[in-house]
């Protein structure tokens, strides 16, 4: 665990420590949520909508999430945009593992949420990416409009805003 997680233990003994703790949380969470770097990881049609969100009209940069990094080492957010197939599943798992903590996943589009239109009569589609990686936000739509994706990112920011360093959720691996 990081050193910062030991600070609350000390702070509880100090009177008014909780107040200080919430301030530290606020600063850390604000830093995390205002620069979520997504990984450029388009699978299918939703990738085109993700590019349209990154383009000028819908401009994902307003939320600090416009820097699409190529390698997972520099990303905080994996937007699974498209259909997850059985041949691609191990790669998605490996990419998720190779992202540094704290990391988040947005399942964009019905295919990533639950297999969507490819639910029946398919032998090579993974019905939902949450069978592979823990998903934070589901963005429905086929493909979801860029506004939906922006709404998903705002929901993710709200989720990060509620995080705290006191009891770091241990991700069961």
């Amino acid at each position, binding site marked *: 665990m990081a050193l910062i997680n030991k600070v609350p233990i000390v702070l509880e003994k100090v009177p008014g420590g909780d107040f200080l703790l919430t301030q530290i949380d606020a600063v850390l969470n604000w830093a995390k949520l205002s620069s979520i770097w997504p990984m450029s990881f388009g699978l*299918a049609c939703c990738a*085109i909508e993700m590019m349209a969100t990154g383009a000028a009209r819908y401009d994902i940069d307003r939320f600090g999430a416009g820097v699409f990094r190529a390698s997972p080492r520099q990303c905080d957010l994996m937007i699974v945009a*498209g259909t997850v197939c059985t*041949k691609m599943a191990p790669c998605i798992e490996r990419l998720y593992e190779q992202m540094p903590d704290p990391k988040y996943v947005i399942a964009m589009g019905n295919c990533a949420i639950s297999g969507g*239109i490819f639910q*029946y009569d398919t032998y090579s*589609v993974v019905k939902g990416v949450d069978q592979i990686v823990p998903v934070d936000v589901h963005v429905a739509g086929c*493909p979801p409009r860029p506004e939906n994706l922006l709404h998903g990112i705002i929901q993710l920011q709200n989720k990060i805003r509620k995080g705290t360093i006191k009891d770091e959720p241990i991700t069961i691996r």
Partner: protein
Amino acid sequence: MTTTTTLNPEYNRETDEFYLNMGPQHPSTHGVLRLELKMDGEVINEATPHIGYLHRSMEKMMENRTYMQIIPLTDRLDYIASMSNNLAYVMAVEKLMGVVVPERAQYIRIILVELQRIASHLLGVGTFAQDLGAFGTPLLYCFREREKIIDIYEEVCGNRLTYSYFRFGGVARDVPDTFSDMVQKYITYILPKINDLERLLTNNVIFLNRTKGVGVISPEQALTYAISGPNIRGSGIKWDIRKAEPYSLYERFDFDVPIEKNGDCWDRYKVRIEEMRQSVRIVEQAIKQLPGGEINALKPMAMRYPKPEKGSVYFRTEAPRGDLGFYIVSDGTDKPYRVKVRAPSFSNLAILPELMKGLKIADVVAICGSLDIVMGEIDR
């Protein structure tokens, strides 16, 4: 396999071969394509593409759906030009059933398909320039123009990317009355923008060094690998299905087929730019001659549950990426017995290993961008 360097006799050492995966998650492979590269230093000895990372078993699904339920599936084949997929599939079934589509519907179809060609080429050229290092500027310009086309599509069929707007016998609904002046406004808007794009890219020194003479496809190679669309016209073969086998009302419009001679990445890019201008010409003529009249030959029930008699049909159209064909075998029931999609990007990609030998890794990116492949229709 080791190769010896020719630098200097004293320095003659064997160097080992280096394996590199330009894997499924890569910014410049235009989707989930994996290129396994065997390299000596920077020069590529052998490149083998691995596909199938987006194989969604579409052809198996199509065997268990009625004809109309397949239309949304065809949208997701080549998801950058889904209007053209719809057209190819719907016209194939119409040919099977022998339905004559009314004039107004055919005009609406041609206008929308040619606008789709402009949108698809815009995205193809934008990502091609982005891969070659022009980070942002051309891509954002192209997306701005493309968003305007998508506005027209939203007005007409309500969706941004997957339209499912065509039906057997015509189109699903009539176009709104603001349609013709929206298209008219777009035509006068887009032509100077294509010139700006050309001024920005075509004679740019960096763009030239990266694309001129790279990935040359000779006409014989183009034919034996069955590549099609702007890629084959880039190698000097004047062949366009809209002219060779005119379907729908294409023989009414005069437009010419742009070709370039020496078939490198630069020429394929120039063919795409020129094709955008030709598509604008077609839309211009089509919007002027747009007739009135009803928009669907079949009654609603016959339109939604067609039952073509036993037989098979192979129908192909000129999609933005090339020769998109549908082979449909019907056994008289309301579900097709077998649907085969002949995807242009499938054979366009097959030529990649042939072009890669001896080039550097930066050229892989240029060639992959210039072939303008889409993984959705390769993996089906």
